[in-house]
């Protein structure tokens, strides 16, 4: 008979889990594996609330295994290292992102693209090598193989380097020296986009006149919207050879008009997080350019309310759970 979450591993652990597709989170006793030779144990300080967490707890994509402990934007402190661990020592500030395992042998893994490995293991809701389910960062501690742990640069505040798509894309874009236009359905976001985030322009996607003027002006578009939405107007904004890169995961297919692709040699692509090497590179880039996410820090017991606000996009721009100070049994 399968062991219960509390019994399957030797180390006691505590977090919050959703038990069913209502998605409501509540205290949850479980366990973590022994710290193996290649492993690092991390006391979790902060964990970002990603919109994927919300999709998973509600089983929007149909593959959630309950009980599920979400959380894949984890920052903490190393408390234990296995005997083969070389890159980290006790006390180091580290992060764990979306993945905690891969096959290490396939073409993708060989190219530092573990995120595209067909046998990738996600930080939560995935089957680990030992056959147990992975539990994420809405918890007190996590045990992760060294090569999936990121060094957290000292000058990045640990509660702020944790995610958020659109607003972080603006910050990266400016740091890369690009001209950034934010495309949004809400005119109210314009002031903040331009004055606080540094965007160069703002386009209200429901304003046909403004969209028309902007046609054929963009080299590429990063689309972070996960709701079903129209691609045709976005394709129109692209120049010849323009690229529309979609990062959001709608639960239904989108409509793709083919004429704009053919007539303008345009393309639509996707991308899914990044490999370990590139994630570290990204963190180091943020440290170098002083880029952080804009967050709202919350206590663990307010996570359900945060999920409800997240469902209504009522957050500027990421909730981060103050795990160390508010997760108590």
């Amino acid at each position, binding site marked *: 008979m399968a062991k219960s979450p509390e019994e399957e591993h030797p180390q006691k652990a505590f977090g919050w889990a959703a038990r069913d597709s209502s998605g409501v989170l509540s205290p949850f006793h479980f366990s973590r594996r022994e710290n193996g030779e290649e492993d690092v144990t991390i006391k979790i300080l902060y964990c970002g609330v990603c919109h994927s967490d919300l999709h998973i707890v509600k089983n929007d994509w149909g593959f959630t295994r309950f009980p599920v402990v979400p959380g894949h934007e984890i920052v903490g402190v190393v408390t234990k290292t296995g005997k083969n661990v070389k890159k980290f020592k006790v006390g180091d500030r580290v992060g764990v992102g979306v993945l905690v395992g891969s096959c290490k042998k396939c073409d993708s893994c060989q190219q530092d693209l573990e995120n595209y490995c067909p046998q990738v293991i996600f930080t939560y809701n995935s089957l680990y090598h030992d056959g147990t389910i992975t539990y994420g960062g809405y918890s007190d501690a996590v045990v992760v193989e060294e090569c999936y742990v990121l060094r957290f640069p000292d000058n990045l505040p640990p509660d702020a380097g944790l995610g958020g798509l659109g607003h972080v894309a603006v910050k990266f874009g400016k740091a890369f020296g690009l001209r950034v236009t934010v495309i949004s359905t809400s005119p109210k976001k314009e002031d903040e986009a331009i004055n606080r985030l540094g965007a160069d322009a703002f386009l209200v996607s429901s304003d046909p006149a403004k969209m028309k003027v902007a046609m054929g002006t963009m080299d590429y578009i990063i689309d972070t919207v996960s709701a079903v939405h129209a691609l045709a107007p976005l394709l129109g904004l692209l120049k010849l050879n323009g690229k529309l890169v979609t990062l959001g995961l*709608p639960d239904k297919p989108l409509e793709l008009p083919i004429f704009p*692709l053919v007539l303008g040699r345009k393309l639509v692509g996707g991308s899914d997080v990044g490999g370990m090497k590139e994630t570290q590179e990204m963190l180091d880039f943020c440290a170098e350019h002083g880029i952080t996410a804009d967050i709202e820090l919350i206590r663990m017991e307010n996570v359900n309310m945060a999920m409800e606000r997240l469902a209504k996009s009522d957050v500027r721009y990421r909730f981060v759970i103050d795990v160390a100070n508010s997760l108590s049994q």
Partner: protein
Amino acid sequence: MAKSPEEEHPRKAFGWAARDTSGVLSPFKFSRRATGDKDVTFRVLYCGICHSDLHMLKNDWGYSTYPLVPGHEIVGVVTEVGSKVENFKIGDKVGVGCVVGACHSCNNCANNLENYCPKSIQTYGFKYHDGTITYGGYSDIMVADEHYVIRIPDNLPLDGCAPLLCAGITVYSPMKFYGLDKPGMQVGVVGLGGLGHVAVKFAKAMGVKVTVISTSPKKKKEALEKLGADSFLVSSDQDEMQAAQGKLDGIIDTVAAMHPLAPLLGLLKSNGKLVLVGAPEKPLELPVFPLIMGRKTVGGSLTGGIKETQEMIDFAAKHNITSEIEVIPMDYVNTAMERLRKADVRYRFVIDIGNTLKSN
């Protein structure tokens, strides 16, 4: 009052045109401009029938003007050149494809991408610089600006290379642009028709391993034995498609009818590219998960610029690549269109203009 097609230009011309959206073609007297300083005039010997011709005849895309003389896979022999023409002389074998004019001042034109110029002038059915409508290759002569004339190397048979001027460049250009031309790559070709079969030949010449993806099992033998494809997948065979998941670096999709993209995306490796060169009129369903989970892309491509078209013809000459064709007399053209509509051709009709287009 606008001049009639017969009167608007000084030189008599004869061809076949459709008069309305029935798309039925019949003999048509019209006229061509005099050979300008930069123009090349040639006697048309062959013209390929492109599926776009059928779409335009029926006004499927909503911008056809009648009378319409189609044909943009045109080959022949030069009979006259303008005083400023440098690259051609009388007797040269030449061709003209889909574009006969552009603005020459935009970024696209500066990058040899006249086909993407917002003011590009198509070989038929478009307004030329002089305000008259262009008439295509289902006719006895063509007059074109030297810039848009392609030299046909001597070793290429004229009838077999006519379709390359549209079908050929339409698959060659995206294979180069999307990087699906490297030896050892695995590339799929969807649809074994006028475009698809040429894509297989080009790919083999580039050292690429080709998988043909088709709805018809009957095409398998020919694909493997005659065209040299490395493998063949029947798209409605779930088991075959499942076994082939994640194997292809790219796919050139030539199918213009509505069809599902999801199974094709599944065939791609990570970072794989699905390139559409057939354009269905209605949007297709795009499942986003496969794009994201595999960092895959869906792109499009439209014919190619003049420089690249010449490069493609030279490549075809070097590798002795021609289209598989069925040569027909001019008066068979309406029957050919009916057969084309049912995809009943291996793999391109070519009208023997030189021998069978006769004005009475």
